């Protein structure tokens, strides 16, 4: 059935709250306001203020409180309004959520789900346009997923709630109004596997979240020119599904990684280096990256568009790796 990414996430939240009394949702304005992106609209009315809990502006405290509640056996879903504000809670994530199980010698579990919006594109400027999910993917002890479709927005949450470890769900802010087909079951793909969104043979485009649609758009254009690009949607950023990525690259021999994060130190770098390590002799050209320009994202549309990965840039990068002389220059 068709619904928006926003409705899909709301459906998942409603189901989770209805199904398990241990589940509750907390975060800034998730209740009366209905969620900054209207994702939790109506849930307060249905489940009450104990289970749909508005928090003060205290990111570190309410993320930490989610960790504590999870340790005590609840199944909290913490909404951090956006990844931009999650920096204020990063200590709790890195030093508490990610360490407790190992550091305690396996005594504690942190079955916590943290959701947050990520990404740029809405002209909200330098402090509200970060794509920092790659940082979260660096942290052992937590898991990170990024639904790119309405179907995944609907079905990744219940799977995340079944995990005994902290799972971070990154929802690209541009996807909320996007409509998509949502199956009435999760389907065969496990939570931590990548998906091939478009089969191809000439090169592999690897993306996640809000960049998947841009990769598909570039693939369409390439297809019109007789080039069949395979598009891999990572879905899981930690763990990374090396098997799916490498199988595709070994088959296509060329790859472009798309990532809305700033290029230097992006998750795209990790993927590019893993391909280099594991599929070096299968590559006919260096792996290319299409990332955001290394600049605080500016407000005006023309500058924001220029700063972010776009289908044209992906197309150009694809053309680049397809050139016989590919990679001879930087």
């Amino acid at each position, binding site marked *: 059935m068709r619904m928006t990414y926003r409705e899909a996430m709301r459906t998942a939240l409603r189901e989770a709250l209805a199904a398990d009394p241990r589940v509750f949702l907390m975060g*800034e*304005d998730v*209740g*009366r*306001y*209905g969620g*900054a992106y*209207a994702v939790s*609209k109506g849930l307060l009315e249905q489940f009450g203020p104990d289970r749909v809990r*508005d*928090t*003060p*502006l*205290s*990111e*570190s*405290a309410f993320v930490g409180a989610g960790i504590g509640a999870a340790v005590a056996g609840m199944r909290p879903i913490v909404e951090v309004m956006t990844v*931009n*504000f999650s920096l*204020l809670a990063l200590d709790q994530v890195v030093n508490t959520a990610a360490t407790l199980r190992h550091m305690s010698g396996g005594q504690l579990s942190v079955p916590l789900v943290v959701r947050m919006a990520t990404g740029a594109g*809405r*002209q*909200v*400027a*330098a*402090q*509200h346009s970060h794509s920092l999910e790659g940082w979260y993917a660096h942290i052992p002890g937590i898991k990170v997923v990024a639904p790119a479709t309405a179907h995944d927005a609907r079905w990744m949450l219940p799977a995340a709630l079944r995990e005994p470890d902290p799972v971070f769900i990154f929802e690209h802010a541009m996807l909320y109004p996007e409509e998509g087909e949502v199956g009435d079951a999760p389907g065969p793909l496990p939570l931590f596997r990548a998906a091939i969104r478009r089969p191809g043979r000439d090169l592999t485009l690897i993306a996640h979240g809000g960049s998947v649609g841009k990769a598909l758009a570039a693939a369409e254009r390439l297809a019109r020119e007789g080039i069949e690009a395979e598009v891999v949607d990572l879905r899981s950023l930690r763990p990374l599904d090396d098997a799916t990525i490498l199988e595709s690259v070994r088959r296509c021999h060329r790859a472009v990684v798309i990532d809305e994060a700033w290029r*230097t130190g992006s998750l795209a770098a990790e993927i590019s280096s893993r391909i280099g390590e594991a599929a070096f002799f299968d590559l006919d050209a260096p792996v290319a990256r299409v990332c955001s*320009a*290394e*600049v*605080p994202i*500016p*407000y*005006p*549309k*023309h*500058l924001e568009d*220029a*700063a972010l990965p776009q289908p044209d840039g992906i197309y150009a990068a694809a053309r680049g790796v397809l050139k016989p002389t590919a990679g001879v220059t930087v």
Partner: protein
Amino acid sequence: MATLDAPAVSPPQAAVAIDPPTARAWLGQMLLIRRFEEKAAELYSAGKIRGFLHLSIGEEAVSVAAIGALTERDNVVSTYREHGHALVRGVPPGAVMAELFGKANGSSRGRGGSMHIFDAGRRFYGGNAIVAGGLPLAVGLALADRLRQRDAITACLFGDGAVAEGEFHESLNLASLWRLPVLFLCENNYYAMGTALGRHQAETDISLKGAAYRIPSAAVDGMDLLATTAAVRQAVDQVRSDGGPVLLECRTYRFRAHSMYDPELYRSKEEIDQWKLRDPITLFRARIERDGILTGAELEALDREAREATDRAVAFAEAGEWEPVADLLKDVYAREPPCA
């Protein structure tokens, strides 16, 4: 729930005198903010302004009183709801409107938009979209002044929601511990987005929080321009004389939505109407008329001037150029080309 509770602060010692020029100036500034933001809302609907737009309509008295009490030497640190602060500080309306448009003739060359108005020459240090993110910056500006024995204070404006952030606590402690000249001015409009004060603060009287840092504190009716002016002046004088920080809570209300995205599910029309009865512009105008300080014709003229200034600002913004894409990476670092 937001109620019209009486501020728990002793009424200002010195009554504020208002002669005709003062009345004209203050009412003119409030009207400029009101008309400017009404126009901005229109232009948002028209698609000329994008992204986030936060209006301070209803809170004009605080902008006029707070910024009006400062000298050119003082520093201002503001939030994303800062149009009023910027206009009263003297940032040209055209430069502010152009910034809202994202044009290169905007106050931040159009890069920041509504939430990031900067004017270094006027010591207007933004325009910060991270709630409470400006407080440490204000402490640092004041620390620099202290270390250089520069005689100036730093006014740091923030909302009631910011009070819950750890940075509020850390910054107030630091400013008091080091006796830094910071006026912490909380614009308490009783909501942090859709979360009412009572749902985000265990102690809803923000002016009581200064005691935890030995910071003299007060609260004032932020809809009453004269009371607020007196309270701010008193606070500013105290910061200048003591050298240490003061916390002033101005109790006000936001008549419009939090931002242009907000469906306002969290408050009733009745509540808003209640507060509108205490519209700071209406109240001040009534006072002026009552005391016959300005004539009806003069009042008309002030409103006309505010509308005209707004129209000129829009024209200036419309006429502005877009920053060339080639300049995207300019000023990431002082020296080009940007590194890494």
